[in-house]
């Protein structure tokens, strides 16, 4: 007899659907990591001297640092001397239009549901597509430029807007922050750059799609978003990778800067290859994301849906420097099979009347391990700081785990910090109830999970909320019926 337990097991061990590889001729950096690697990348990108120096400084810092040991999983050994730190599709000279993009690449993104030809684009979304180490295409550039919005690959920004890059690069996440941030600063290859000028409300969603393709490489991209006074931007990133037996490292850095009255909404749908059901392969996702609400009344909101990666290690944070500024963190993290997620946020209240809100929804299935780790820090000058944290865990089956590590440090008596936490299990009664209304177990689980994650999914831009819902359903899909 097929029991609910069996079905749950099937449901929670479904295979990955974006695991194909693209056969395209690649140009790769020699295997290994040393100062020459850093010089190689910088030369490939035709970078100015100051940036090379900045990278080398980071590299020297990296050499002095240790791998972290405080996380709630065993750090896998990573041999950085056996991978290549730069991989780019060969054909690339400077591209002037989409027609010049290798059709094989366009087909790859098409297959992933990311159409790059503008006439096929979803209305109102501009996309930057990053394939291994380089950006292959950015859409709607012209239209955005008319309004003064800069949205381009990081490499291009270094060439075209060096002053802006120089002014803000590394100001939120210094290379000394942690070993992965140092590594990224040394070897980052591309990523996206966004600048929204004063008083401009960016008219469309900006989106970057990251794809790891090549074997024996890592992806180290860097994203920098600056919202000048009184501006607004909503930005979304998506990610996938082929199925490979080796683990691949992804160590990105994202920096957000919101000036006076500015608002940045940053959404992530992360679906890197999670490894197979026995935990073989998959992406190691070690990412540093931080924003600073520099100006008064500014706001930064992080929303993340994390379904992929063998290991996810990320804590998108907000430094609330400006008075009356607001930081938000909305997260759904799903782990199944042998996936591990150690994720959460840090909210640093520095300015007066600063507010933060943290909603974290963990979903553990199979043998997945899910940890929420969060820090709410209130500085002595942060009068009337407010924080609300809610962190919920949902368990599917009895082989998985959910953990919470909330930290609160307050140096100001007027601060108000609230923390709520719940843990629940998908009940057989809930599944039977839905079965009895004609809904099969697979759909029932998807319905329950989406209901549970709704508060977070509602924060995503409409088109992506639908995608994220499907992704959650697919991630839990099994061979039922």
């Amino acid at each position: 007899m097929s029991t609910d337990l069996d079905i749950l097991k099937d449901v929670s061990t479904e295979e990955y659907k974006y695991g194909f590889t693209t056969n395209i001729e690649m140009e790769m950096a020699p295997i290994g990591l040393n100062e020459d690697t850093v010089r190689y990348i910088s030369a490939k990108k035709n970078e100015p001297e100051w940036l090379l120096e900045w990278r080398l400084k980071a590299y020297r810092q990296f050499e002095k640092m240790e791998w972290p040991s405080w996380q709630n999983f065993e750090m896998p050994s990573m041999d950085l001397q056996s991978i290549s730190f730069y991989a780019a599709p060969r054909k690339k000279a400077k591209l002037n239009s989409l027609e010049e993009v290798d059709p094989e690449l366009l087909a790859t993104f098409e297959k992933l549901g990311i159409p790059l030809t503008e006439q096929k684009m979803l209305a109102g979304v501009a996309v930057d597509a990053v394939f291994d180490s380089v950006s292959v295409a950015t859409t709607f550039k012209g239209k955005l430029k008319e309004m003064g919005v800069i949205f381009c690959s990081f490499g291009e920004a270094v060439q075209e807007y060096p002053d802006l890059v120089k002014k803000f690069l590394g100001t939120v996440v210094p290379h000394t922050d942690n070993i992965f941030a140092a590594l990224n600063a040394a070897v980052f290859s591309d990523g996206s750059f966004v600048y929204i000028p004063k008083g401009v409300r960016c008219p469309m969603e900006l989106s970057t799609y990251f794809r790891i393709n090549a074997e024996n490489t890592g992806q180290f991209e860097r994203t920098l978003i600056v919202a000048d006074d009184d501006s607004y931007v909503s930005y979304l990133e998506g990610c996938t990778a082929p199925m490979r037996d080796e683990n691949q490292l992804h160590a990105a850095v994202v920096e957000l800067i919101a000036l006076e009255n500015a608002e940045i909404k940053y959404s992530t749908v992360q679906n890197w290859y999670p490894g197979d059901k026995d935990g073989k392969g998959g992406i190691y996702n070690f990412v540093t994301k931080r924003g600073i609400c520099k100006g008064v009344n500014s706001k930064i909101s992080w929303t993340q849906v994390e379904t992929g990666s063998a290991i996810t290690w990320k804590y998108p944070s907000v430094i609330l420097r400006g008075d009356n500024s607001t930081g938000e963190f909305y997260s759904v993290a799903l782990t199944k099979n042998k996936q591990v997620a150690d994720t959460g946020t840090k909210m640093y209240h520095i300015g007066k009347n600063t507010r933060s809100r943290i909603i974290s929804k963990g979903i553990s299935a199979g043998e997945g391990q899910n940890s929420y780790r969060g820090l709410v820090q209130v500085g002595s000058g942060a009068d009337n700081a407010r924080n609300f944290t809610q962190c919920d865990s949902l368990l599917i089956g009895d082989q998985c785990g959910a953990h919470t590590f909330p930290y609160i440090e307050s140096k100001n008596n007027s601060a108000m910090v609230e923390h709520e936490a719940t843990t629940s299990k998908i009940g057989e009664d809930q599944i039977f109830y839905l079965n009895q209304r004609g809904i099969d177990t697979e759909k029932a689980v998807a319905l329950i999970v989406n209901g549970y994650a709704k508060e977070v999914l509602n924060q995503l831009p409409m088109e992506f909320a639908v995608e994220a819902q499907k992704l959650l359903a697919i991630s839990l899909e099994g061979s039922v019926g």
Partner: protein
Amino acid sequence: MLSIKNLKASVEGKEILKGLNLEVNAGEVHAIMGPNGSGKSTLASVLTGKEAYDVTGGQALFEGKDLLDLSPEDRAREGVFLAFQYPVEIPGVSNINFLKTALNEIRAYKGLPNLEAKEFLKLLKEKQKLLEFDAALANRSLNEGFSGGEKKRNEIFQLAMLDPKLAILDETDSGLDIDALRIVSRGVNKLRNGKNSFIIITHYQRLLEYIVPDFVHVLYKGQIVKSGTKELALELEEKGYDWLKEDSHETEAAEILLPR
């Protein structure tokens, strides 16, 4: 429509149903009464395929199909509906989204296309009006924070929306005050159309004053020991179950009274 023959079922090795017989024809309302532990809710669970119950003998045919061989969702799609005694809460899932999913799953099973949003909303409004069901409840998360009465009303609302051939009401009257009982009963009566059938499981005769059954059966120790018309319910109310307990060997005689 439903033909149950010599049905035996157990939970955790303990036999609860011990050879139950019941025939329900299209358009009929059957009430099943009986003391606590006689197997009333077990019957509902076994017919709808709840996992913890093992069928150890006998059969249940629904429109000629072996019901016990179907998955719970397929039984529902074939037209068997259970109004739960204790409806569960499913946070974050809107009643409307849930009903649309359920309705379209059932339609897909029958080879029908999904109901368009407009048609669905029309149906929703129609049934809300018919049952005097609060639109605010329809928009809320499935049973989340509903009172006991609201949950029961929501079961009847789902019954109206899904329009099954056979509805089993498992102690729908339990926990209802007299007003709620009236509203729920009125709803059920409005849904009777001469083609659909109802099995009403209840402890009390009170509900049967509002929903008048064609037949009343007494379930005792896992068997139907007596069947009759609505007057039997009154007799039970008056005398209790004890007089039947002594007569439980009359099972075979009782079967003769079963409608054919």
